[in-house]
């Protein structure tokens, strides 16, 4: 285990003094003062768009403040780009993954500091040796020759972190590292972070999940609308207080009422499907979703969720079995036809599939419904009606926006997700396939989205929920099915299972 020399026992290893960053008229960071003490885990919390990522980017030299300075080892410092930050021992795992597609894990690990023999030839043995050493330190084993594109998310996450260690960083900035991980993976990550801290490293940790934050951090800074609201020791605060500080009001937890099971809506029989390379990923799945209930598929990503979603929605062709919707076989229909028959689909990948970031907010709210007879005649859109409808919809879902004609990328993640949900629930579909509905959304947004899903269910809607958030599943689901290694196992009913049990089932440990 390599230990990190504590650089001159500085008190503030990394911080900001009076940092301000504007984007046009928007002030993303407003005279932010911040100090992460050496050898601590410092959590930064705040709602979507609070300015957390912006501050972190500044601390890593990716961005520069309009005013104020970065503090490194108690001294004001200027960071001329990420390379400079690495020289000062500062590395960051960005909110969106920063791995290069088409490269192997090993190549991504050593990129920008490759061990070479003569002629610029990469010394593979040395690289692999370093990789193995890091593996040991982190307590994982990886297939280093795997392409990034083929690696599951948690593996990518690990590689991102190992890469910082490889570069010798002793300050690790992690922007929402747990957003895409399963509970056991989160636990492993947190254990790893604690070990790293105990070795003397400093960690800046961003998360929307307050349980995690309370569990892992030594200090917490709360940011709201670009300003630091308060910095404190974790031991001196509570989850409830944090939530209130973050959003400026007291939030009531979504209460779970049981649903009223109606007639069966979606029936999958012996459904199986392959991934894009032809590997069997979903094996003979059987399940039914009834009107008025939420059925959750729990599972670690990569266990066949994508194929299950694809086969149900028609995004991919199933290899065998059948899917029927309200009694009609839809197995052979492509996605548009399934949508026309009352299926709605909320994509897990908001930026790439769930929304069109360049299109306007209103357009994103209406897509898919624009061929409704109220909105189109003879192929000509009734723009007036459409705009009015979009406004109504966006207001109903309280989407905070300057104008509906702006590109949707101008919205915060939480508000983007509201638009996606508003669109999918518009027109009262028979069934909603909702995947990771609250990924990367702040607590206020989560509560709202949960409310939407429950109300839809209570109106008689059927929901097939695919999520890695166990809390979410426990809160929402009337029935829970665990997906492990392509197979559906065990079925739990509301109130039956606790998080621990489901977590173990997700890892194939119990039945």
């Amino acid at each position, binding site marked *: 285990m390599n230990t990190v020399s504590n650089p001159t026992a500085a008190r503030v290893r990394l911080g900001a003094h009076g940092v301000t960053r504007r984007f046009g*008229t928007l002030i993303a960071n407003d005279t932010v003062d911040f100090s992460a003490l050496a050898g601590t885990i410092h959590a930064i919390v705040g709602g979507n768009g609070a300015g957390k990522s912006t501050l972190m980017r500044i601390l890593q030299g*990716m*961005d*520069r403040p309009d005013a104020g300075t970065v503090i490194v080892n108690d001294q004001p410092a200027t960071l001329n780009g990420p390379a400079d930050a690495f020289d000062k021992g500062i590395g960051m795992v960005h909110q969106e993954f920063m791995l290069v597609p088409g490269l192997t894990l090993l190549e991504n690990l050593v990129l920008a500091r490759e061990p070479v023999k003569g002629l610029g030839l990469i010394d593979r043995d040395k690289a692999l040796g370093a990789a193995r050493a890091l593996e040991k330190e982190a307590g994982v084993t990886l297939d280093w020759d795997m392409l990034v594109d083929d690696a599951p998310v948690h593996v990518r996450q690990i590689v991102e972190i190992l890469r910082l260690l490889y570069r010798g960083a002793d300050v690790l900035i992690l922007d929402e590292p747990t957003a895409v991980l399963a509970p056991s993976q989160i636990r492993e990550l947190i254990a790893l972070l604690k070990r790293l801290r105990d070795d003397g490293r400093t960690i800046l940790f961003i998360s929307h999940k307050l349980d995690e934050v309370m569990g892992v951090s030594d200090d917490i800074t709360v940011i709201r609308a670009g300003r630091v609201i308060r910095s404190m020791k974790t031991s001196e605060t509570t989850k409830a207080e944090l939530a209130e500080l973050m959003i400026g009001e007291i939030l009531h937890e979504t209460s779970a009422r049981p649903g009223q099971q109606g007639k069966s809506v979606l029936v999958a029989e012996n459904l199986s499907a392959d991934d894009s390379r032809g590997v069997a990923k979903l094996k003979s799945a059987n399940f039914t979703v009834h009107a008025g209930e939420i059925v959750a598929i729990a599972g670690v990503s990569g266990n066949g969720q994508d194929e299950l979603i694809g086969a149900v*929605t028609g*995004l991919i062709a199933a290899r065998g079995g059948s899917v029927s919707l309200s009694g009609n076989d839809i197995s052979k229909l*492509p*996605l*548009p036809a399934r*949508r*026309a028959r009352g299926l709605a*689909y909320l*994509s897990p990948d908001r930026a*790439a*599939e*769930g*929304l*069109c*970031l*360049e*299109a306007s907010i209103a*357009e994103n709210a209406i*897509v*898919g419904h*624009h*061929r409704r007879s109220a909105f*189109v005649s003879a*192929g*000509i*859109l009734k*723009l007036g009606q459409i705009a009015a409808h979009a406004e109504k919809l966006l207001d109903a879902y309280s989407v905070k926006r300057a104008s509906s004609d702006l590109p949707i990328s101008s919205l915060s993640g939480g508000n983007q997700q509201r638009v996606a949900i508003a669109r999918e629930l518009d027109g009262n579909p028979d069934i909603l396939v909702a995947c990771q509905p609250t990924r990367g959304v702040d607590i206020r947004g989560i509560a709202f989205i949960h409310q939407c899903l429950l109300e839809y269910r209570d109106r008689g809607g059927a929901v097939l929920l695919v999520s890695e958030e166990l809390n979410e599943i426990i809160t929402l689901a009337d029935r829970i099915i665990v997906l492990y290694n392509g197979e559906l196992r065990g079925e739990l009913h509301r109130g039956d299972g606790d998080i621990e049990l489901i977590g173990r089932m997700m890892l194939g440990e119990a039945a």
Partner: protein
Amino acid sequence: MVAVVSPTPTASRLSWLVPVVTALQPLVIALLLGAVVLAIAGHNPLETYGLLFAESFGSTKRIAATLSASTPLIFTGLATAIAFRAGAFNVGVEGCVNVGGLAAAFVGFTFVSLSAFILLPAAIVAAAIFGTLWMVIPGLLKSRLDVDEVVTTLMLNFIAISLTAWLVNGPLLAPGSANSATPMIADAARLPKLMRGSTLNAGFLIALAFVILYWLWGKWAALGFETRLAGMNARFATASGMNVPGLVFKMMLLSGAIGGIAGGVHALGNVFRYVSGFSPGYGFVGIAVALLGRGNAFGILLAAILFGALATSGATIQLFSDVPIEIVNILQGLVMIFAVARFSWIFSRRAKS
């Protein structure tokens, strides 16, 4: 303090100028560089630019010549833009111009007994049909088999040029002609002139109509809306229930149809037959026009007029100065390069991030 937050009244009244200045800035830089080249070549840049302007817009006749030269470019710009919109990088409009032009000319010199009311539309429809057919193969390959459309359409350009060259020198050769040309089309097949003593013809009006249609289509048509979304994010469009390969195929065909009409209108309105050298690369300039106009209907119109002006004035200024055609070409290239450049970069401190 207040002044900083809310823009002053003066600023808001002049704010429409900002995009105009931004748009003109690259043109100005291209002209400055061109001036350097001119000066090195021993020509007075100001005089040359004055002459270029006068020969493009200096009189009704010259304006007519400019608009006439821009007519095929409007079509090819639109044809290219419509495919780009769907996310297909179609560089094969040049081929469509050639097959469309030959098809229209063929109808125009073959069915000479028909009246103008039938012959003219028939010739244009023939051009559209052949342009469409020309895009069927790359369209199918792209949408069904995911074969890169850049290669296939580029190859088809070469094939179209050879194929038309063969037809026009063999089966369709005008008797007694020493170079590859079809017979002249019947008078009934000719697009009416808009002005005596000029080549400006009804084709320009058709082009304008297409610009407006394209604009309306993009704004109002469900298909236009879907095409735009599919072009911006195909995965999203698929997940939202659109048939993206189908859309791409349709738009490739539509692109081919408009490209074919570009050739048809050129044959029926200007050249009155198909002849070797029929298209000096209208399809390729169309790519630049579409990109310069940023896919926007009126942007395309303006870009086409700009290139039309340079083409026509580039030829006639040689009558009044010693500026050779290559200087005009250099200028054209410079305008193209810098028209899409963003100089704000140089002045912006943090553009790197």
